[in-house]
């Protein structure tokens, strides 16, 4: 039963130098609903929630909370008003215990001292509400990302929140963890809380939300009940143009006699992966499917020398190569876009130009520098080619949106013209338009004869793009299937049952 509006925003406009980030946007949130906020990167989702929690100041418009106008000056004030936000990157202290994280800054006191037993008892109570039976005195870093996320939510919820904002909470969770999160969200909804949910996963929107609001380029497209709008219409509304592109992608055409570009025989790192073999033909795209932790990333890291293979052999283009470090892999003309873009990919404080030229330059060695002009030409070429949204190549890479950062990393490796390109979750956490573009680029590179390994948790994009699919489970390859003839059900069955 839809409740009354607890939050109403009318005619919100926020201007940043040069751009209107939000232009007259209306938004309302009811008691006891999960409301998805949708839009491409840069559409204004983050700006809108930052306006609610007081990080950004609005230039005009009104925000009503329970009918009273509010004007929070920062997250703390918003929090006392009952608006809690869990950000995309978990803002907690990994070295403090789960309980400490939940209560940091507002520890219950007893006779002038922190009441630890009370903290631990209440933390346990909160976590058990989420069906998590864990030792809350252990440091947060001991637990998985999902538990960390729950901790952040527990912290947000415990401050008597009326409104909970979840910004991309699922981008680093696996399927089971997502389900756990959803059950917590539903539970909170049923207790009357209004939840604003931001995600890039369309399936999740349909799985959990009641209503959705779509933004595009700072404008409101509309607010819909979840059963009012199909997936295709939704994407079309988000992007503002027909999404035929994504459905017209064709997998690479690899002749059966194409030469083998990469061959790994019985490689293992001595701890996580024991025995992995793989061949990759010229121009072929091989998808890696499997759950998080199934060994996909570990295999990729070994192939690139990010972790050392202690046994087994790797051949690139027919030649046996010794890959002990990423430097060796780059010399062998491999390239690798790592899973954690922020930690291992983008060099945030350096410019787009410097980020793009890095792999080319490191292959040349520092004694053979590229001139600034060469770097700029290189960067400009890829900015145009990949459609990176930036005024110029001197902007700091860290200031770009997720999708554009991913394009910068792709550009870094495309510039190095590799023979083998390994992409670990290149489409995670980026919007659907950019996703389609990255898939298109990937396939274009296959067309030019680059061999690609594509790791993704989203089976539909793996099936759409791959020639062959390697299915991993429990840190080993369990099956290899043909990309053209298999279905999601086939793959899920193999992942679940462990055999072809």
């Amino acid at each position, binding site marked *: 039963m839809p409740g009354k509006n607890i939050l109403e925003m009318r005619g919100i406009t926020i201007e940043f130098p040069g751009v209107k980030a939000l232009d007259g946007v209306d938004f309302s949130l009811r008691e006891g609903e999960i409301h998805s906020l949708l839009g491409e990167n840069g559409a204004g989702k983050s700006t809108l929630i930052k306006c609610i929690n007081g990080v950004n100041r609005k230039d005009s418009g009104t925000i009503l909370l329970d009918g009273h106008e509010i004007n929070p000056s920062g997250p703390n004030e918003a929090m006392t008003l009952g608006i809690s936000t869990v950000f995309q990157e978990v803002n907690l202290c990994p070295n403090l215990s789960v309980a400490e994280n939940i209560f940091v800054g507002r520890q219950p006191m007893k006779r002038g001292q922190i009441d630890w037993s009370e903290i631990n008892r209440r933390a346990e109570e909160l976590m058990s509400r989420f069906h998590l039976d864990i030792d809350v005195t252990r440091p947060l870093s001991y637990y998985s990302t999902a538990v960390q996320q729950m901790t952040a939510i527990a912290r947000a919820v415990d401050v008597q929140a009326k409104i909970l904002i979840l910004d991309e909470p699922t981008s680093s969770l696996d399927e089971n963890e997502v389900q756990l999160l959803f059950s917590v969200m539903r539970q909170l909804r049923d207790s009357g809380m209004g939840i604003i949910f931001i995600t890039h996963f369309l399936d999740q929107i349909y799985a959990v939300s009641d209503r959705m609001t779509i933004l595009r380029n700072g404008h409101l497209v509309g607010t819909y009940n979840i059963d009012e709008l199909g997936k295709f219409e939704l994407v079309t509304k988000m992007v503002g143009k027909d999404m035929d592109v994504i459905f017209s992608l064709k997998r690479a055409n690899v002749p059966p006699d194409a030469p083998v570009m990469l061959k790994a025989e019985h490689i293992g790192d001595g701890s996580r992966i024991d025995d992995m073999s793989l061949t990759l033909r010229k121009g072929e795209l091989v998808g890696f499917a499997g759950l998080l932790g199934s060994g996909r990333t570990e295999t990729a890291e070994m192939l690139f020398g990010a972790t050392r293979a202690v046994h087994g052999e790797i051949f690139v283009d027919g030649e046996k190569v010794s890959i002990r470090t990423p430097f060796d*892999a*780059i010399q062998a003309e491999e390239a690798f876009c*790592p899973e954690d873009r922020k*930690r*291992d990919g983008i*060099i945030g*404080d350096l410019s787009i130009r410097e980020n793009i030229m*890095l792999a080319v330059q*490191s292959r040349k060695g520092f004694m053979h520098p590229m001139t600034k002009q060469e770097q700029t030409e290189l960067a400009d070429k890829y900015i145009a080619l990949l459609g990176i949204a930036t005024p110029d190549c001197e902007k700091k890479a860290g200031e770009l949106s997720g999708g554009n950062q991913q394009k910068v990393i792709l550009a870094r490796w495309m510039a190095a013209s590799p023979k083998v390109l390994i992409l670990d979750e290149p489409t995670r956490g980026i919007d659907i338009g950019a996703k389609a573009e990255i898939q298109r680029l990937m396939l274009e590179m296959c067309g030019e004869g680059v061999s690609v390994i594509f790791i993704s948790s989203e089976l539909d994009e793996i099936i759409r793009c791959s020639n062959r699919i390697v299915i991993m489970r429990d840190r080993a390859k369990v099956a290899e299937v043909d990309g053209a003839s298999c279905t999601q059900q086939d793959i899920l069955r193999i992942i679940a049952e462990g055999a072809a």
Partner: protein
Amino acid sequence: MAGKRFDIAGLMQSKVTWAVIAEALILLVCFMIRPDFFSISYQPSTGMLYGSLIDIVNRSAEITIISMGMTLVIALGGTDLSVGALVAVAGAIALKFLRWDVLTYTTPGDYTVYPYILVIAVPLVVCALMGLFNGFLVAKGGIQPIIATLILMVCGRGVAQILTDGKQFTTGYSPFRVIGQGSFLCLPMPIIITVIVVVAVALFTRRTAFGAFVESVGVNPSASRLSGIKAGSVILLVFMITGLLSGIAGLIYSSRIMSNDSNNAGLNFEMDAILAVVIGGTNMAGGKFSLAGTVVGSLIIRTIVTFVYYFGIVAEATMAFKALIIAVVIVLQSEPVRKYFARRAAMKGGVRA
């Protein structure tokens, strides 16, 4: 026109700009108190230029040279605490080779026991190796730079003591005197050495991709490694360079006093060098560095000290006075202040346009 206005706002954002402004203000105060502060005179008898400004640059030589290396270390996100101790080590080794056995060569004079080339080369090689040792602990041992370099900071002076049997040697060897007290092109030798070092480091970092690699490793070591940069080698090289530069500074220092002083040579140099780098606008968290900014930073520190001497402020108050001015400089450079002035500059530009 609009572009130019924007540039002013950009300049106001830059820490280097504020360092230059601070230096100019300090000099202006000097000039107002003593109009002859800026006068430079030529002394035909020694063939050298004299004046407060020359003196500031001359006396800042050691810190400027060391802080060139420190800039790179800080750009990597670290600090090197051992530089002051290495100054003492370099001096001790040089004097050891000049005098060797004081019981045999009892009186100091215009001689050297071992060839002059060893007097110069051995301290530099030893300091470079000590820098390499620091780098090894950091790059291969994964020890935090501040801890790794603490080792040599503490034991470096001990090594210097052992080398000279705890004694303070003096020498009168004239080629050695040239390093700290000689002149070239009418300028004191330390200034010439400083210019060479600054130019060499600038060319090495900016005319090769080394500077970009240092910045990249400083911002994100993991991503840099995965982009093929040999982060370990970069770290080793940076610490080795810093060690070598500390050695050069050590030779200048001991040539000025024509002696070794294991207790006081290079004392607190690490703090001055770090300060010079920070005033120069390089972030302690690592990343983008500015060698020009560091030079200005070093000059500011020395200008303050000269100011104190010149205007007869009591010696006891020197440190407090120095701290006071540095506090003002750092506040001027702080984010809110820079943003405030940048905003004002931008607004003015807008109104006029």
